[in-house]
């Protein structure tokens, strides 16, 4: 125990003196929170701007546009009825635009009188953009309401908007911050340990340590404990920034602390597993980047896994970071510890496997 503490103290002293490590561990996540919070955190940005060209210009088409406006997810802007629809979209770099053709009101009137009639609305835009999807849903919902009204049908299924007792009023930062904590749990220990293993090998520190009574498992344990302390400091700074700057509602629960500890063991050990194969610092950085960066983006650090295409979602299930991100969101943001507990178990499983592989695989002896 004494050896582990001494090794941790010496390692920590060097880490803090290196400054670069301290910057990436403590300052960088704060910068990310400030940056992403400023970009996505403002309230207006959740609304999609929909440009509407009303070529019919009758009470019915006005009512349709009003209904769109009342959905609260769309901000309506007008395109002059005389303008060339496609040309106008191109000229003004518009994401999504709706065209209501002449004869919109006539078609409704005919249908109301029992005559068969249809009218086609044109919704133009980049279909890969999420704003397009939101616009389609909103327009579809309003169109359905109109159709029901014309058919004189009463809706059977209704939605009653009701707030759930106990659920926090959440904002973007509440979903985003757990992801940034997950990102830090990956990046700080993984990149750090891979670089350290490379340095220890190229500078022969492993050989030097092999002449002492410190075992490999003790050396790894010292690094794990150090990174846990570092992550706690980092999370405290992040949460403080979230509360002070963005009014964060998500809370650091005991379950979140357990996930942070398990995740740090996991990625410190994984960094050392990669260190088994690393011979010099350049290869170390390349391997850590090759594994770390895709995981950061695919495991839902910056956006939820559910927002990704299904084949990527299946892939995300294989990534250890996914469970940390989802577990932290579940417990910190939604307060569902039962869900988070499963994520904790998966994370612990990965952690044990990586630790054992690292402690066995890394060789201090020469061959």
């Amino acid at each position, binding site marked *: 125990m004494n050896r582990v503490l001494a090794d941790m103290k010496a390692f920590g002293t060097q880490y803090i*003196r290196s400054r670069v490590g301290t910057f990436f561990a403590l300052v960088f996540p704060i910068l990310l929170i400030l940056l992403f919070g400023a970009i996505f955190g403002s309230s207006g940005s959740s609304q999609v701007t929909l440009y509407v060209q009303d070529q019919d210009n009758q009470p019915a088409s006005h009512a349709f546009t009003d209904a769109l406006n009342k959905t609260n997810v769309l901000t309506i802007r007008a395109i002059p009825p005389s303008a060339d629809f496609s040309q106008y979209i191109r000229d003004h770099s518009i994401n999504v635009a709706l065209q209501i053709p002449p004869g919109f009101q006539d078609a409704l009137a005919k249908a109301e009188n029992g005559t068969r009639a249809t009218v086609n609305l044109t919704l133009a835009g980049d279909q890969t953009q999420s704003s397009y999807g939101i616009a389609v849903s909103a327009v579809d919902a309003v169109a359905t309401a109109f159709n029901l009204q014309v058919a004189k049908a009463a809706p059977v299924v209704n939605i009653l908007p009701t707030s759930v007792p106990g659920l926090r009023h959440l904002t973007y930062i509440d979903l985003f911050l757990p992801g940034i904590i997950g990102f830090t749990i990956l990046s700080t220990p993984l990149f750090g340990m891979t670089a350290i293993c490379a340095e220890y090998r190229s500078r022969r520190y492993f050989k030097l340590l092999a*002449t*002492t009574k410190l075992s490999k498992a003790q050396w790894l344990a010292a690094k794990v404990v150090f990174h846990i302390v570092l992550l706690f400091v980092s999370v405290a700074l992040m949460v403080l920034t979230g509360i002070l700057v963005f009014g964060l509602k998500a809370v650091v629960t005991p379950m979140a602390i357990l996930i942070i500890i398990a995740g740090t063991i996991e990625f410190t050990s994984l960094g050392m597993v990669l260190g088994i194969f690393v011979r010099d610092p350049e290869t170390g950085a390349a391997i850590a980047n090759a594994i770390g960066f895709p995981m950061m983006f695919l495991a839902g650090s910056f956006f939820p896994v559910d927002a990704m295409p299904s084949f990527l979602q299946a892939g995300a299930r294989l990534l250890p970071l996914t469970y940390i991100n989802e577990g932290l969101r579940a417990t910190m943001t939604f307060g569902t510890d039962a869900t988070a507990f499963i994520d904790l178990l998966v994370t612990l499983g990965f952690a044990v496997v990586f630790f054992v592989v690292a402690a066995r695989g890394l060789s201090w002896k020469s061959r």
Partner: protein
Amino acid sequence: MSRLSGLKGLRARRPSNQSFSWGHRGRRDGGGDPTAEPVIDVRGLTKHYADIKAVDGISFEVEKGQMFSLLGPNGAGKTTTVEILEGLRDPTSGEARVLGVDVRKGYGKIRNRVGVLPQDFEPFDRLKPREAVAYWAHLFDRTLTKEEVAGLIRTVGLADRADTLAMNLSGGERRRLGIAMSLVGKPKLVFLDEPTTGLDPGARRELWGLIRQLKSEGTTILLTTHYLDEAEQLADDVAIMNHGKIVARGSPADLIAKHGQGHSIVLAGAGEDGLSAVRARGVVAELQGADVVVQVPLASDMRRMLEKLASIDTPLNEIYTRRASLEDVFLNLVGARMQEGVLAA
């Protein structure tokens, strides 16, 4: 006053069984105690890689208190041998016992009685000597007081630099820090693997002084080097290694007497003309570069030979006599010559 005084002072403050001595108070003049178990006992040791016999069946013993040197050119197998004895490599075959235990199995028992300064030692850049020594002691399950740390740092002559980050120390200072770290466990045996390689002459001589003091405290030392003068200056006993084998063994004086060629007279810069003139007098000589060298196997023949050569009037720079050194032993045994002070294979 000895540099070791810092440590000697500590001895009085500690119980006798924890005294900060570097080991037993052994013999000071080398040679070892024939009745005691050897500190290092190597028999038929081999280390083979796919196509290389790095160590090829060597045997030697190192007695308590001895300074034993493995001397050889780069690639001779010195470091491989030492790393086997340090428990860092497993041998292919043969037996190696250190402080009475088999290096393959028992190293856990003796780890804190063995100090190691590895080849190309590099300290931790962002630790100060004071911190590094205290840290290293913990890794041998020892907690040093501030005074003990300071004493050890004073011992290696780093008192002025105790609070300088290691990255700002000179090459010689780094090695001295390495020696201080190797001594935290109060070892009975210290391995110094090429401790002065890459240092300037001044730093080398300072380090020699430190190593001599270490030996005078009774510590057994295994020193590898490819500097002939280092082995000649420091070692009680030398084993010359080449291509994984020990080709000669003995004290520097014994080796020189046995494998050197006695004394020689050098007519520096005498050239071909000088060689002809010397040979005309019926003296056997050879040309080494521009120098004419005359071997004089018996010291008693020296005066007669000098008189014989004094009358040569060929232009030359100087005449001097030379006693055989380990370099001559090398030339004879290994065929190795010195290049910039280092042995070349």
